[in-house]
């Protein structure tokens, strides 16, 4: 049986892309066709395996409570035993399928998009390594294995953002991403170490057993701190406020990278981590509240920035941050199912949006500003169709994928907190508005002069078609197939389909689309007027609330100031002491040099004088004097 084979060999899923990375890196760097074939072949194999694992999971009844775990001891020391292995439960299997599927599609797309690029082989090598790292993270059996792959994912992100390393902005963006996520990783590492310290294990199976007893015995204070430290990692990786600043800059990478890493997979690693450690977070109400509010604030905040951005990929980047905030919000209100469902649909439609944006950029090289585009509907019908599907999906218009997952989140939030629900609704409205704005400005209206747009090649259209299909049905099918029965935490809870919530959110989305049409699509010159009218608010949003500037300022004044202080200390105090010491020795030497006059008489005088002193000392030393007096000759 294939599914049984897949279950037993799930460890191959991350290993195959890793092998592809090695093979391409070592042998096929200069052979684009073979490199792409190897990468896509390996991705296809791991997708098939992942699908087999999913089938096996359904067949064998593997649930959240009864995961299938293979592990081998990785390192064993007195007091520390860490395993490495494969952890298969509906959560990780879902991630496996999503990651392998999106990776496969994006790699297919890259064949067309990256065609003729110098670093073609390098690109496929990196992207395979990334897939391997992400898949390894997903099947981790304990926090340490997860952390290792987490860092590997960060490394791949660095490599891929800085893919165009000859561009200064790309290098800077790669550095920024790496440094910013490093802040988060620091917290995560401390949290993991504290967990090991408190429980003596990092195992995902052993920890849930121990935590309730610990809570009863010691209370939740320290554990909340641990949970918040762990949450700092996802804040960095999943671009939550205030560590989101790297994500928009990460758009310096090639568009397929943005689609794969910064929309569909890597950035959801943080969400996945929180979901994986949900046994810990869900036991701590304070931590849950923090997650919910950070998520809600990030969602709303990023959406408000996206309203005014002009760079097509940046709009999508802020949209990604916003949607990640949504997932965090869902986790924070305790609905693992809704969060993971949104993760699933978001992976499809956001990848689709990015691929469509990539097609636009591919058709119009050198232009990023959406206001320099326009009327592309006629020239790029396929891309237009893909973009429409993506926008409708993210807006939550039924029956597209986003509707179902968003509805789940709104339901869950409504059940827990009304203020959060209000924030979520506002965010949903803004999301629809800016996506519609993007769509109208780029594809409708008159064509801008001097535009030489052309439609994307077939190798890019097919992936868009696949994702477009998934963005349409990716919500409805899992919803009806009982997604919540499998991916859940605790008992399966079917929230009743609430017509009021679903209806209001749909109406809101339609209203937002209508508003966007009025401002941007109808051809009236209302956009510029509005921008002028709103003044300060527009400026704030356009400049991303000056957060980058604030960080820079902080960096300059605080870090550089401290550096200056240290430099001053070094120059004047430390070096002063050293110079003083050196000078003292030098002066002593200079003084002693004079003693070495070469004047024989002075030497003789000193020698004889010293002998005299010794003689006198001997004479007046009472003991020796007594000896001399007593002894006699």
């Amino acid at each position, binding site marked *: 049986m294939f599914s049984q084979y897949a279950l037993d060999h799930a460890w191959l899923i991350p290993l195959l892309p890793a092998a592809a990375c090695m093979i391409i890196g070592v042998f096929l760097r200069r052979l684009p066709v073979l490199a792409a074939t190897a990468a896509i072949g390996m991705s296809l194999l791991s997708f098939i395996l992942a699908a087999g694992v999913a089938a096996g999971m359904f067949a064998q009844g593997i649930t959240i409570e009864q995961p299938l775990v293979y592990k081998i001891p990785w390192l064993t020391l007195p007091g520390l035993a860490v395993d490495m292995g494969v952890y298969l439960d509906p959560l990780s299997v879902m991630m496996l399928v999503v990651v392998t599927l999106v990776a496969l599609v994006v790699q297919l797309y890259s064949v067309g998009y990256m065609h003729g690029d110098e670093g073609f082989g390098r690109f496929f090598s990196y992207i395979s390594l990334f897939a391997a790292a992400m898949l390894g993270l997903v099947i981790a059996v304990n926090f340490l294995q997860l952390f290792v792959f987490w860092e590997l994912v960060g490394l791949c992100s660095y490599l891929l953002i800085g893919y165009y390393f000859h561009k200064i902005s790309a290098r800077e963006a790669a550095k920024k991403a790496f440094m910013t996520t490093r802040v988060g990783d620091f917290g995560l590492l401390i949290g993991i170490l504290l967990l090991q310290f408190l429980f003596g294990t990092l195992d995902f199976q052993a920890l849930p057993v121990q935590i309730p007893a610990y809570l009863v015995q010691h209370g939740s204070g320290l554990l909340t701190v641990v949970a918040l430290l762990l949450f700092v990692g996802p804040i960095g990786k999943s671009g939550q406020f205030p560590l989101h600043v790297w994500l928009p800059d990460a758009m310096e990478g090639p568009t397929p990278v943005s689609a794969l890493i910064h929309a569909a997979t890597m950035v959801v690693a943080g969400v996945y981590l929180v979901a994986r450690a949900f046994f810990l977070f869900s036991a701590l109400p304070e931590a849950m509240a923090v997650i919910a509010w950070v998520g809600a604030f990030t969602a709303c905040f990023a959406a408000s920035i996206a309203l005014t951005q002009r760079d097509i990929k940046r709009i999508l980047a802020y949209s990604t941050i916003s949607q990640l905030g949504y997932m965090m919000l869902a986790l924070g209100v305790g609905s693992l199912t809704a969060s993971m469902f949104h993760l699933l649909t978001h992976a499809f439609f956001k990848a689709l949006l990015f691929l469509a944006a990539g097609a636009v950029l591919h058709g119009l090289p050198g232009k990023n500003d959406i206001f320099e585009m326009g009327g592309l509907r006629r020239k790029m019908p396929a891309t237009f169709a893909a973009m429409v599907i993506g926008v409708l999906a993210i807006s939550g218009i039924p029956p597209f994928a986003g509707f179902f997952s968003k509805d789940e989140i709104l339901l869950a939030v409504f059940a827990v907190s009304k203020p959060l629900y209000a924030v979520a609704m506002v965010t949903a409205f803004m999301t629809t508005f800016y996506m519609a704005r993007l769509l109208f400005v780029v594809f409708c209206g008159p064509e801008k002069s001097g535009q030489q747009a052309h439609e994307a090649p077939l190798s890019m259209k097919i992936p868009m078609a696949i994702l477009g299909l998934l963005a349409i049905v990716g919500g409805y099918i899992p919803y009806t197939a009982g997604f919540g029965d499998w991916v859940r935490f605790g008992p399966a809870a079917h929230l009743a389909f609430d017509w009021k919530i679903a209806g209001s959110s749909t109406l809101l989305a339609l209203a937002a689309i209508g508003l966007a049409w009025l401002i941007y699509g109808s051809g009236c010159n209302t956009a510029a007027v509005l921008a002028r009218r709103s003044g300060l608010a527009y400026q704030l949003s356009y400049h991303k609330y000056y957060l980058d500037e604030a960080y820079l300022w902080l960096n300059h004044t605080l870090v550089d100031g401290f550096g200056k202080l240290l430099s001053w200390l070094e120059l004047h105090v430390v070096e002063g002491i050293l110079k003083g010491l050196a000078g003292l020795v030098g002066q002593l030497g200079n003084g002693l040099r004079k003693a070495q006059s070469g004047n024989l008489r*002075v030497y003789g*005088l000193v020698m*004889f004088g010293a002998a005299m002193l010794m003689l*006198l000392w001997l*004479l007046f030393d009472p003991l020796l004097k007594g000896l*001399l*007096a007593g002894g*006699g*000759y």
Partner: protein
Amino acid sequence: MNDLAYTVAFVIFAAITVGAAFGVVTKNNLVHSALLMALCFIGLGGLYVLLQADFLAAVQILVYNGAIAIVFVLGTMLTRRSTRHGTNETDENSPSAWIAALSGLFVAVTLGVIMHTPWRYSAAGPVQDTPDVLAQLILTDYMLMMEAAAVLLLAAMIGAIVLAKGVNAE
């Protein structure tokens, strides 16, 4: 009476020795210094006689007066062609006053020590036939030292010849 003669002899010889030594270091003429040194050695020889070291006195006169002092005089004469004046001046750069003070201090301290030390004189009389006894000692107990001294003398002789002759730079 005997004691008186001994005392007188001691005073005379001591005066010769000290006075000549003083002249050696104060005279500006090197030849004068050399000659006064010879006189000083003679005075010392007299003191040796007073100490019943007659053989040593003879050696002193022979070696120091006959050899060393003459070598000094010859050396002085060989190096200075024109004037003999100002050949043995005190170096104006050297801290003479300090050295004089130190030397004086040395004398004072030594004299103090000598006077305050309770010497234990031996009651035994001096050896009469010193050359025999010395020869005995040197050729038995101090054999090794004598041979070392012989080697030293040989080395000094060869060294002096080599140094004085100069090595041909070939």
